[in-house]
């Protein structure tokens, strides 16, 4: 990781120096070492703060929408992990960003860590995390702790989509495709599907009642890139701003999931940023699972210009009654 970070920094400085790019989109360290946030850098001096560590889970592609708009000269450099390039492609497909304005450096990724998971193990006062591949050596103010790396991985990394870059101008330190079997990303969805309707309702009521409508999921989601969200638009019939009923409030997550259905790359950012730890990705994955099963495997962002499953059809698509038939089988 250290080595990759060094290579990235070197290359970023070169590209800034020769004028290929005028701005860099990357990550910078916060108050704590795990507190890494997306940041932009305009000069070599600023780029000194650029980091690349095991806590760089954040997907930077969505920032390119506003960055592309604001850009007046040169290109903007974006550091994208393999999974981030799917979102990047999806945004290209939807004409939300301008490929000519972006210089993509694909950065190799071994899987990113979830600080919430580490904290949940009771590890506190973290000062340093040394990644030994299989194990994490965690230095804390209370001494050293270790944990298995896979126990601390972000949900999305447990079932890593690919180590290959779907879009890039150059690649730094790519990882080979993992040979080990990936976790079944639909395991939890299947588990819920196996429950009774009442149990599922109880599950979602429990989860969705936690929501505080902070909009973090919406703001981070690369598919939620609308100029103006339906929830903020009084003529959409959804917004409750000019309305006394709370349709929007109650249906927010369901409507959001439907709006991104077929466009969601399963980047998992919604769940990662949720302060209430609502497993929002389970809504998106339900749509993805259904789409894969009914209309054939589809991965949003796999290629630019692909037709989203909901903007497509075949003459012999499954009839909607398939929902009932599957339930009875």
């Amino acid at each position: 990781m250290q080595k990759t970070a060094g290579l990235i920094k070197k290359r970023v400085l070169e590209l800034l120096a020769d004028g290929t790019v005028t701005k860099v989109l990357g990550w910078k360290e916060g108050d704590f070492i795990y507190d890494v946030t997306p940041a932009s850098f305009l000069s070599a001096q600023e780029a000194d703060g650029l980091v690349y560590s095991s806590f760089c889970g954040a997907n930077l592609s969505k920032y390119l929408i506003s960055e592309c708009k604001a850009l007046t000269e040169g290109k903007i450099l974006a550091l994208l992990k393999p999974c981030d390039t799917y979102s990047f492609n999806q945004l290209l497909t939807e004409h939300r960003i301008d490929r000519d304005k972006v210089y993509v450096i694909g950065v190799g990724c071994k899987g990113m860590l979830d600080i919430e998971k580490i904290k949940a193990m009771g590890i506190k006062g973290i000062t340093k995390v040394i990644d030994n591949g299989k194990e994490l050596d965690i230095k804390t103010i209370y001494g050293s702790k270790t944990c298995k790396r896979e126990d601390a991985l972000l949900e999305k990394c447990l079932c890593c989509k690919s180590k290959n870059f779907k879009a890039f101008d150059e690649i730094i330190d790519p990882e080979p495709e993992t040979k080990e079997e990936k976790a079944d990303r639909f395991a939890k969805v299947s588990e819920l599907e196996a429950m009774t309707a009442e149990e599922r309702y109880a599950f979602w009521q429990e989860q969705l009642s936690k929501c505080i409508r902070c909009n973090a999921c919406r703001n981070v989601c690369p598919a939620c890139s609308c100029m103006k969200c339906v929830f903020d638009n009084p003529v959409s019939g959804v917004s409750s701003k000019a309305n006394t009923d709370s349709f929007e409030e109650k249906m927010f997550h369901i409507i959001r999931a439907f709006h991104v259905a077929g466009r969601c790359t399963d980047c998992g950012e919604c769940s990662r940023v949720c302060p209430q730890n609502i497993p929002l990705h389970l809504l998106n994955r339900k749509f993805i699972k259904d789409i894969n099963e009914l209309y054939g495997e589809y991965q949003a962002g796999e290629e630019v210009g692909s037709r989203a499953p909901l903007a497509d059809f075949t003459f012999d698509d499954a009839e909607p009654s398939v929902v009932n038939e599957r339930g009875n089988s």
Partner: protein
Amino acid sequence: MQRIGVFVCWCGSNIAATVDVDAVVEAVKNEPGVCHAQNYQYMCSEAGQGLIKNAIKEHNLTGIVVCSCSPRMHEATFRKTAEQAGLNPYMVEIANIREHCSWIHKDKKEATEKAVILARAAIAKVNLNTPLRPGESMVTKRALVIGGGIAGIQSALDIADAGYPVDIVEKSPTIGGKMAQLDKTFPTLDCAACILTPKMVEAAQHPNINIYSYSEVEAVTGFVGNFDVKIKKKARFVDEKKCTGCAVCTAKCPSRKGGNEFNCNLDNRGAIYIPFAQAVPNVACIDSTRCIHFKTGKCGICEKSCSAGAVNFDQKDEIIEQKYGAIVVATGFQISDVTKFDEFQYTKHPDVITSLELERIMNAAGPTKGTLLRMSNKEHPKDIVFIQCVGSRGNTCRDKTYCSKICCMYTAKHAMLIREKYPDVNVHVFYIDVRTPGKNFDEFYRRAVEQYNVDYIKGMVGKVWENEEGRLTVQGVDLLSNRRIMLDTDMVVLAAAIEPSEGVRNIATMLTASIDTNDFLTEAHPKLRPVESPTAGVFLSGVCQGPKDIPETVSQAGAAAVKVVGLLAKDKLVTSPCTANANELMCNGCSTCERVCPYGAIDYIDKEVNDHGKREVRRIARVNSALCHGCGACTVACPSGAMDLQGFSNRQIMAEVDAICK
């Protein structure tokens, strides 16, 4: 806030017997926006409409709800009423309390409650209605006829006679279609060519008709009154203006191995050919797949022999772009593939033929010069078996489910003609049913049986094989005597099912005209609008719509022409204002709506928008309201809700749901 008037119709007792109309008026009086409510015996009557008009004026109404029969029945009526009283016609909503309520519910209390809810939903909707104005579009006064068979020719002649220019696009080198291949026609037994060729010539010489032969429609965009069509005029390597049709080249062409399609491949033609003597245009055409010059660069005999210098090996395909106001589809039919019916030996024995092949054999210009001969040994047959419904009226994957309609009559015709000309030939016909409705049709069939002693056997044939004498044995059943029969015969003629021409699906897609499971084009209404496609401006002529014989085809062709003339006679068309509309400030320019639009009505422009003082150039969707049909597919595909449908907006429908679910 709207000022809404609610008008509850009794429809005599149709509504009032089951719905307490007074209670409905009472219940909706205090709904938001309602400032007038009343009921009346017949709202659609002069007096009822007068009542509405008075109320609009008296109460300064801005919107009205009529609780009456289906909007499909009287929405247009009440819109007109509103307009006459100075109200925008799109400020009218109908609550369907007859078809959807009084006629299906018996309990008066229940029906009244439902009527109130339906009225409330309509009130909630009209509260959000906005005045809409229909657009206008121009009409290009020119028609396109796709297909140059008898259907296309007749439609074109009728349109042209009414004074409008027509182009016929025919994919083969000549017009005439299937009828040109027929020998005689039922029930009069007059010769097909004698009645068809004058029409072909008339079409060719008509000042308003232009024939694009050996051409195909490449692309169609646009809409009723304004179709933009690309026509590919395939290279025929012969200059149409120079060729005199002398046919010297066709006789001299040394490449003679390929089949002659006009004679059902029963004989061969040269690579340069004129399909038949009366072809229109009477111009040769080079089949480049068979021409020695195109294969080896040598030969060129036709070029040398042509005194007019018409042969031009460098001719290229040409794309013609033309605007049309209306399109007639007259793509006709083809014989379905009988090779699937292996039990009849069609692919194995030359004496097993289709009825169309028999037409060519009987025709003086055919492969046998009109003498009935076995194709295997060119001998005169003694026995002929006809098998009906080959591929029609079946329910296996080999069959069409429908009746091909013309086979009973043409088989009777064939049987009769053979018995007339060759009284020594025994003719047997296996049939499921004999269906001969039509003027002088059943009489015709009975003549075949009674006068010409044709042996009609009710039953199907199981199989056919070549026997030791080199003749054919037919094994079938006679259902009337319930016994198996074996017949030795010299020829077997299959009445193969007819099916829409290959490529019709492609044309239907280009025209966004719908097509049924058998690939026949769908009519706008099976009874009341049989010659119109549901796609405005597209009309149906001939077998492309369903199996039919020549007289039916000609009458439908004429009917389609009248519809075209009715359309072209207008200078402008009124377009529905219920079209999609993108809110510039909310549009992401993501292209999702464009992908789901069946009419290509959406495109994208880079436009400077003023978003609350912030000016920027954005990629935004633009709907061509003349192309938009108002289906609403885009409105749901749009993730941001920027796309909405006028007359059925998100808020309007949400308000209806709200009112119903209160």
